[in-house]
């Protein structure tokens, strides 16, 4: 089975180059649109972004290249039971309901920039803030590395050139494009490029659905083929998978909503109405994204049986190759689809990079390290530090991506949600429960992270179908709640006396 696309011709390559160049141009325009050199302007676009930009940046950040390749591959392997992905992506918006309004109100009142600014305000405990920053940075750093590797793999499958050189070129060139436009325009550039990337991604999914329906006939036909050849992929999931299904809804719902880059987009909304409208549309996007990925995976399983586990992750490429071969229209359709793949990967990578840069600059360097270098750093100096850090981080991760070619980071990626859910008592529960105190929250988080990593390292990534992170969250939550009841903070942090989440 050939799992590589037919190499793109000069026209298609020019199309991709124009797309990449347009991202740099947007970075330059965003640079000219800056209001000042403050951290808030660089990391949150000053007074914030409007409805269309917020919606598309949330969309393209939340849905990565994994949505296209990983979800179609997973559906290929397990069949209709991968409908779990529709539910867990929808559950992210449901979790937003529990904390986004309250968090947004506080963010506007107190000028938050990074996620842990909320924890500083709520608990006033630098240890809790520092540990939270480290957990967030750790959880999303390998996610960024995985996006860089996906960029290399995407280009590798496109040319006749030596695969190793194509991979290297893909990683280096695309990483360079990202870090250039991000350094120029910061959040403004990332959000504006996300508008293009989100649009291409949305169009790509719709075109993908049309193309597979046209190429392979009705879903009824695919279902009958699947039932005849691989009935397990058609049938109800086993009891163990049902438990994992519940677990996925909770782990991805909580973990995905607590992505630091997503929290910063909540802060960046121009108004509450903007945030409200964007989230209302976001609630329906799993139906136009993950549902389509599942349907394409079903078509793939019905029409290309017998792929190995590793090959199954390239089922989308196998499907695309056949569409490419059919006609000129099919060829250009795949060019747009490939652009959508690039858009999905790059938009996730740029958002993660900016988020890590902001947390390292503001939460670690400015609070804990800067005093060793200068007495009173200006906002401009901190912004320049953030830009420089982005370059250093990108160079380090590019070197790692080049060395790790051919390896899979899927297991590491699975663990990022297990880690991020450990932040949910600190971010979500504390908004609603004034009595929650800092020390038990900190101890719960540390124990939760240790439990999660320990279980995974011992080979218990799932315990009777439930994610290790969810089991660890129970321990974490019990310590945070029980400890807060036993030893409440004397001053309840630095909050005012109104209920924190009264806006919800």
């Amino acid at each position, binding site marked *: 089975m050939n799992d590589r696309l037919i190499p793109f011709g000069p026209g298609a390559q020019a199309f991709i180059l124009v797309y990449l160049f347009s991202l740099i141009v947007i970075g330059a325009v965003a640079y000219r649109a800056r209001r000042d050199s403050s951290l808030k302007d660089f990391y949150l676009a000053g007074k914030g972004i409007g409805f269309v930009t917020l919606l598309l940046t949330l969309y393209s950040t939340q849905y990565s290249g994994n949505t296209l390749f990983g979800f179609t591959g997973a559906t290929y392997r397990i069949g*209709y039971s991968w*409908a779990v992905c*529709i*539910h867990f992506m*929808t*559950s992210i*918006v*449901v979790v937003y*309901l529990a904390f986004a*309004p309250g968090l*947004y*109100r506080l963010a*506007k*009142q107190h000028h938050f920039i990074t996620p842990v600014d909320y924890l500083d305000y709520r608990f006033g405990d630098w240890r809790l803030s520092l540990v939270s920053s480290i957990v967030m940075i750790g959880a999303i750093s390998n996610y960024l590395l995985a996006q860089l590797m996906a960029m290399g793999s995407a280009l590798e499958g496109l040319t006749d050139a030596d695969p190793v050189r194509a991979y290297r070129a893909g990683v280096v060139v695309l990483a360079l494009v990202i870090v250039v436009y991000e350094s120029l325009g910061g959040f403004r550039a990332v959000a504006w490029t996300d508008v293009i990337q989100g649009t291409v991604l949305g169009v790509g999914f719709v075109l993908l659905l049309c193309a597979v329906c046209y190429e392979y006939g*009705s*879903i*009824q*036909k*695919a*279902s009958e083929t699947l039932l005849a050849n691989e009935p397990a992929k*058609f*049938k*109800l*999931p086993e009891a163990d998978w*049902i438990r994992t*299904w*519940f677990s996925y*809804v909770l782990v991805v719902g909580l973990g995905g909503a607590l992505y630091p880059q997503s929290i910063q987009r909540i802060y960046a909304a121009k*108004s*509450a*109405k903007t*945030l*409200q409208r964007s*989230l*209302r*549309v976001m*609630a*329906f996007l*799993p*139906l136009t994204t993950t*549902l389509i990925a599942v349907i394409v995976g079903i078509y793939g399983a019905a029409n290309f049986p017998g792929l190995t586990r590793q090959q199954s992750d390239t089922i989308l490429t196998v499907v695309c190759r056949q569409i490419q071969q059919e006609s000129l229209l099919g060829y250009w359709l795949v060019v747009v689809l490939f652009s959508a793949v690039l858009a999905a990967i790059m938009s996730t990578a740029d958002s993660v990079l900016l988020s890590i840069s902001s947390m390292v600059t503001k939460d670690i360097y400015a609070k804990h390290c800067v005093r060793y270098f200068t007495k009173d750093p200006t906002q401009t100096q901190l912004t320049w530090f953030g830009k420089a850090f982005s370059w250093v981080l990108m160079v380090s991760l590019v070197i790692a991506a080049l060395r790790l070619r051919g390896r899979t980071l899927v297991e590491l990626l699975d663990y990022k949600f297990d880690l991020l859910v450990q932040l949910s008592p600190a971010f979500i529960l504390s908004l609603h429960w004034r009595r929650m105190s800092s020390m038990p929250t900190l101890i719960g988080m540390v124990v939760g992270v240790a439990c999660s990593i320990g279980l995974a390292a011992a080979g218990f990534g799932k315990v009777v179908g439930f994610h290790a992170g969810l089991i660890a969250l129970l321990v974490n939550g019990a310590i945070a709640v029980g400890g807060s009841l036993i030893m409440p903070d004397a001053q309840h942090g630095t909050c005012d006396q109104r209920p924190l989440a009264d*806006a*919800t």
Partner: protein
Amino acid sequence: MSHSRASRSNIALRALSFVALFAIAIPWYWRWLGDLAYHRVVGVPAWFAVAVVASIGISINAAWQLGGSWASDIDEAEQEASQ
């Protein structure tokens, strides 16, 4: 009933609506419905179709709850604060 108690029961009802919808969406109960699970609905097994329809229900419920009054409340509070 005090305002806060009414508010708490309102939040509980909202949360319960999501619990109910996810309980319908996740196909844990189909094994007791026999072959009904495998009837074709628009070409897909009935259990998958119900999972998708329930997911649409969750999206509609989320969008409806997001349409509550919180946005205007916050904006008014912001305007008052800026004045």
